[in-house]
């Protein structure tokens, strides 16, 4: 038994290593080309070892001090947005698993329908900016994407349905615990894997979001990191591509374009890579099981 398992572990590691290499390889090209000199890449093509190191692109990004402020904005928005979003998502998902709840079908449909139809950008923009006046406030970065995913509700519901043992809820009810108490003290602690999962997906979403900033923020103090990077990217791309006489000012600063694209990706990616292991501990096997047995 043990011997067989060792064989499997080796195979498992081999497969995962191959997979990791497949995933890492393009990323490595990305990182290396972000540190190469632009003309080398244009003339000789991409390679894993830069002909000469050149950090112009990074200098360009960090020259603007606002990048650290933007990091802060993004971290704040990501934290607040994720917490709010996870609370709202788990609460409605739990309601959707309550047996015999009158109107449950309608409620499921109500949630699912939001995934299929959307009114488009202009109506949402009009509503948020003209009725709720969220333009140039921190809300603009949090609220419009707070729960835009019925997807997360559906998978959380599915998780609750299959992994929360009914006996526990029942006995808690018999003990006279309130429904809210049951939800916060029993259901949530039993659901760390799914909370970590949707939490992480929300974090990813908030972290990578630049559209809210694009549409609702003009105040430089509130620009998020991805919006800042995306602005740089689209701008550099625009200036690099265009040679239309009237669009580019004769005296516009020369910016690296090819290597800038790559370094922007690296700068945007780094903090998440640092942050991710924090979430990982929730996926560990047996975490929920102990609780079930106890």
């Amino acid at each position, binding site marked *: 038994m043990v011997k067989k398992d060792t064989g499997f572990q080796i195979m498992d590691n081999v497969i995962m290593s191959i997979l990791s290499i497949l995933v890492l390889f393009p990323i490595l090209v990305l990182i290396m080309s972000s540190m190469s000199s*632009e*003309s080398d890449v*244009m*003339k000789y093509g991409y390679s894993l070892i830069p002909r000469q190191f050149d950090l112009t692109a990074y200098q360009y990004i960090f*020259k603007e001090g606002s990048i650290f402020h933007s990091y802060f904005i993004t971290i*704040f928005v990501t934290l*607040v947005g994720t917490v*709010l979003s996870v609370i709202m998502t788990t609460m409605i998902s739990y309601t959707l698993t309550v047996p015999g709840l009158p109107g449950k079908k309608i409620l499921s449909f109500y949630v699912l329908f939001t995934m299929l139809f959307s009114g488009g*950008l*202009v109506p949402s*923009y*009009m509503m948020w*900016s*003209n*009725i*709720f*006046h*969220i*333009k*140039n*406030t*921190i*809300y603009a970065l*949090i*609220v419009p994407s707070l729960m835009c995913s019925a997807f997360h509700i559906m998978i959380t519901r599915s998780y609750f349905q299959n992994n929360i043992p009914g006996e526990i809820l029942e006995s808690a009810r018999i003990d006279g615990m309130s429904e809210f108490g049951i939800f916060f003290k029993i259901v949530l602690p039993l659901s760390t894997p799914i909370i970590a999962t949707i939490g992480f997906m929300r974090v990813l979403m908030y972290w990578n979001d630049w559209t809210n900033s*694009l*549409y609702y923020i*003009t105040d430089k103090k509130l620009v998020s990191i991805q919006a800042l990077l*995306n*602005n740089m*990217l*689209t*701008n*550099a*791309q*625009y*200036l*690099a*591509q*265009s*040679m*239309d*006489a*009237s*669009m*580019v*000012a*004769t*005296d*516009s*600063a*020369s910016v690296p*374009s*090819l290597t800038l694209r790559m370094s922007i990706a690296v700068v945007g990616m780094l903090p998440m890579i640092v942050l991710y292991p924090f979430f990982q501990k929730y996926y560990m096997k047996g975490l929920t099981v102990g609780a079930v047995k106890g």
Partner: protein
Amino acid sequence: MKKKLISVLLSGAMAMGLLAGCGSSTEGTTGTNSTATVTETKTSDKADSQEVEKIKVYLPTSGKFDDLDNVMAAVNEITTKEIGVEVEFHPYEFGQWFQQYSLFLSGTEDVDILANYGGYLNAVSQGAAYDLTDLIQQYGQDIIAMEGDFLKSGEVNGTQYAIPIYASYAWTMGILYRQDVVDELGIQDLVDNVKTLEDWGEVLAVVKEKKPEMTPYVRNNGSTATNFQYGTWDDLGNNYGVLMDGGKTSDVVNLFETDEYAKLCSVMHDWYLAGYTSKDIQTQTDGFPTLTRNDAAFSTLGQADFNTSFYQSTTCGKDIGTVMISTPAARTYNNVTYTIMSNSKHAEAAMKFLNFWFSNEEVGTLIAYGIEGTHYKLDANGMGDYVDGQDSASCTYHLGSGISNTNRIRWNTEDPDYSKLLIDSNNSAQKSAALGFAFDTSSVENEITQLDNVCSKYQIGLECGALDPETALAEFNEELKSAGIETVIAEKQRQLNEFLGK
């Protein structure tokens, strides 16, 4: 009832904000709320009394605008006194601009004057452009005096919708090349003998041999723009039906079936086969200036006029020469125009401001370069330059030259005589028969969506030489026909006849 609901929802949203525990931004929300009500009352006041009107101008820039507030204060000091208008500029970086332009057009934003890059017809078809025909007569006399006939390039069916900046109208297709490389290789004779695109192949052959690390020919744009974007023909707004030879006649013909187009494609294909172009020319990601700065490209095709060599030399940072393939012709060219939003409450003030801005050198310079001494200085020749210790990156205000044209001092990278040369060039140019014509696509929109799709399948490939015109051009034309190009051409001819009949 509805109002009540909204206020309930609003307080709900506020409560959610409080939950999040960000006290500082709550302040922001109430702030905006109150200003919203204030503006409402203000506007109703203004309609009655003839006080200072406040207008908002939205435009893109590739420059800097950190110190916008101070510059605007200086601008407003002048404009309030002179025309009783206060302006507020909202500059956007180009990348952002193109993502938000359609939002501005939809009328959701409080915009008075909107810049249009690449045509104002979308603004007209969405009813976003104010009819300026009377306003310009009333308040825009300086613009009329300056632009004359060229003002027509802001018209649709005789109605003035947009104010073009006074740009170079007379241009043609030209070859742009690295003059320094030509000098180095000593092939100026060869270059001087070039009369057609085909002749250029000999130059490319030499460059390919002597400069193996440089791609002899690249596309001018790295985006989806086509290789022959700046042709010798007048494209009448889109390429579906054009006037050949810069609009000498008013017969709308199908460009893709002309011999000239076939010839151009076959030259490109020969170059492609001979290796004068990169194999990736179809999917090139950077434009000529970027490639040139990195010594990776030798020549391209582009828009050429009297100023191209000078201008491109500063853009590319290398010495650039130009060979014009044909004589420049003036045609409808409304790359940068300003429209007044149809829902603007201050259309008159906006027109007054545009007129003032376009004709007053002091304000024009202020808006383009900022305050003298702080954001720019005058050099010995009376041309603009960055103040000591600053450059284009560290300067705090510099919207640049693209936003308006002749109404300012020249920057030291420009030709000192630019204004004079521009006026001469425009006035002496051959004029297209369709100058001032704008094609209204509303009745053929379905055809155009299909044609655009057919074009993205073939056009870049053909015009870059990656596709063999012998076979692909016929296929292309066939698909264009089944997508309805003839309907569009007939409609264009009908509109053009109507336009000329007036």
